[in-house]
């Protein structure tokens, strides 16, 4: 068995059929499909039972475990070398499994790969997730670079390090796990739309209250990364960091905050330079990206992002170097 596809489901009678069919119709056929039912109270079970396919395995939980717990049940029961995730309301395009498996088999240093995503149901967008491994690792400091429904990973990495979805980070458990995994292998996204992600207003991440909670849990992950950079943020710094995070939807008066944001980014840049956690070039780029999107979100593109703090240092360094060479030339 090469790949286990895991669909956790709780009261998903409306869309689970589409999700199952999107997997059964894959061009790659050697998989098992684990559907973990988290005590649904609607007709989910009867919808699943309609599909007579020996590759489908339905697992019913005794009690409601929540999304992270259900996903862990999936990991425990998976037989495959790879694990592919799909949520019960999302859809995989017909070449997804094959393209991901081919990529992972041909590139053994990679342990996790997602895909680009198109959103359906509400506003339609294409999320062009990052593809550069180091850049993804750096950007994980700010946000999750993978859509869970598009992720395929090597099971070996989970079992070797005893990684599971952390029950203490509900709604950010995927972010947490992908971040942990990214320390052990290269990660990427296939630059092709292979997953449809359904947006609807009932989704847990949508209400303002839930958003605030998610921000807190995501912050816990970010705090861990910051600590590995030897940064122990205080309250003010936390506030600033959360404002930089894309899609944070926090109100931010950019003109007033800019000095602090500069200061914070500069600190991040120097600390990383000291402990070499991330490659310099990509870390800089991820900082730049965040600053840029922050500026463009508040409709002030040019003046600030072209004066990003750490860039100045670079120019100074080159200037010094030229001076040094010139001096040595004069001396000789």
């Amino acid at each position: 068995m090469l790949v286990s596809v895991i669909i956790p489901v709780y009261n998903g009678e409306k869309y689970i059929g589409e999700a199952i069919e999107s997997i059964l119709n894959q061009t790659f056929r050697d998989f098992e499909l684990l559907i973990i039912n988290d005590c649904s109270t609607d007709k989910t079970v009867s919808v699943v039972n309609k599909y007579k396919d020996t590759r489908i395995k339905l697992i019913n939980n005794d009690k409601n475990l929540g999304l992270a717990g259900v996903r862990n049940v999936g990991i425990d029961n998976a037989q495959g070398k790879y694990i592919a995730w799909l949520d019960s309301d999302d859809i995989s395009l017909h070449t997804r499994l094959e393209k991901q498996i081919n990529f992972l088999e041909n590139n053994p240093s990679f342990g996790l790969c997602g895909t680009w995503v198109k959103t359906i149901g509400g506003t339609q967008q294409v999320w062009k997730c990052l593809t550069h491994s180091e850049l993804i690792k750096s950007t994980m400091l700010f946000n999750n670079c993978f859509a869970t429904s598009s992720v395929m990973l090597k099971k070996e990495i989970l079992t070797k390090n005893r990684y599971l979805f952390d029950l203490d980070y509900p709604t950010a458990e995927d972010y947490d796990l992908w971040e942990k995994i990214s320390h052990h292998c290269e990660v990427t996204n296939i630059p092709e739309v292979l997953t449809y992600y359904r947006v609807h207003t009932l989704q847990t991440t949508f209400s303002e209250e839930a958003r605030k909670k998610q921000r807190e849990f995501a912050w816990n992950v970010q705090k861990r990364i910051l600590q590995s950079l030897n940064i122990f943020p205080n309250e003010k710094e936390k506030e600033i960091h959360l404002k930089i995070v894309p899609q944070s939807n926090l109100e931010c008066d950019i003109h007033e905050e800019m000095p602090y944001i500069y200061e914070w980014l500069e600190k991040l840049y120097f600390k990383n330079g000291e402990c070499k956690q991330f490659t310099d070039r990509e870390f800089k780029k991820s900082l730049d990206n965040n600053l840029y999107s922050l500026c463009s979100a508040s409709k002030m593109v040019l003046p600030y992002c072209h004066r990003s703090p750490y860039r100045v240092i670079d120019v100074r360094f080159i200037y010094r170097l030229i001076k040094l060479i010139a001096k040595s030339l004069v001396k000789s």
Partner: protein
Amino acid sequence: MLKIFQNKVVIKIAGGLGNQLFQYAMGRAISIEKNIPLWLDISFFKNDSYYHRIYLLNQFHIKAEVVLIEAYPNNKYLNQFMKLKKKIDRYRDKKHRMFLDEPDFLDDSKASMENYFAGGPCHRFDASLVSDISSNVVLSGYWQSEKYFKPIRNILFEDLTITANIPENIQTFGSYIQSVNSVCIGIRQYSDFAASANHFKLTAEYYEKAMKLISSKIENPHFFIFTLERQWAEENIKSDFPITLVTPNRLNEDAYLDLYLISHCKHFIIANSTYHWWGAYLSKNKEKIVIAPKQGWGNSEPLPHEWIKI
């Protein structure tokens, strides 16, 4: 170079011969409807290490303006430049690991909500799709329904004539099939996953019922059974009329030869296989009778309405 910016329909080709033909037909229909050139994206076959499927449409008289396997079609220098750039990137930073394997298709990166279509989540037939499509579009899916390309049926017949070499023994066998009241019986076999949803094997009863039905409609039928499972066919399929077993070619490259033979039959009893579907569809016999199973297709409306469904 400028071709990259022109209006076009890009269709992604994936799967075996049957699927490839459906995808081509869909793309061709849209290209004619909107009067824009057709591009085929065949990057899927670049590293298919499991099923070793290959791009097979080049054995037909297809009309596609560009067949894409690299990012910049028809531009040797640009492609060379991109490869060189990637090499330099690698050299400059040994840890610089990008997704270097796939070509970065411009159309995928340009794709936005308006122009990226997939074959519908459940592969339902979607009538609005063809009319809604804008003039610059990427299509990814199976498109297993005749309704998408019914208006261009005659053009497809022309496009899908085989240009690859047909050996003499196959040609003589083909004309023999044509000379009798031939009925093709397709039996698909899946050694790897017999029980998958759309790939189940049909029962002997289905074939018995279909053969009875067809014997009542035509005189002196001669059954030609196309199957790799000779034993199963010999044990389960019996008739008072003559039966000939034909063993298809196992090689992907030779799949078109069987399609050639199947399409020379006059009447059809097909299995739930897109490959048989095309064999029956491409038959030029005007009074053909096609019997097909109701279930086991990847689309909600897979069969033309003249066909008999049991």
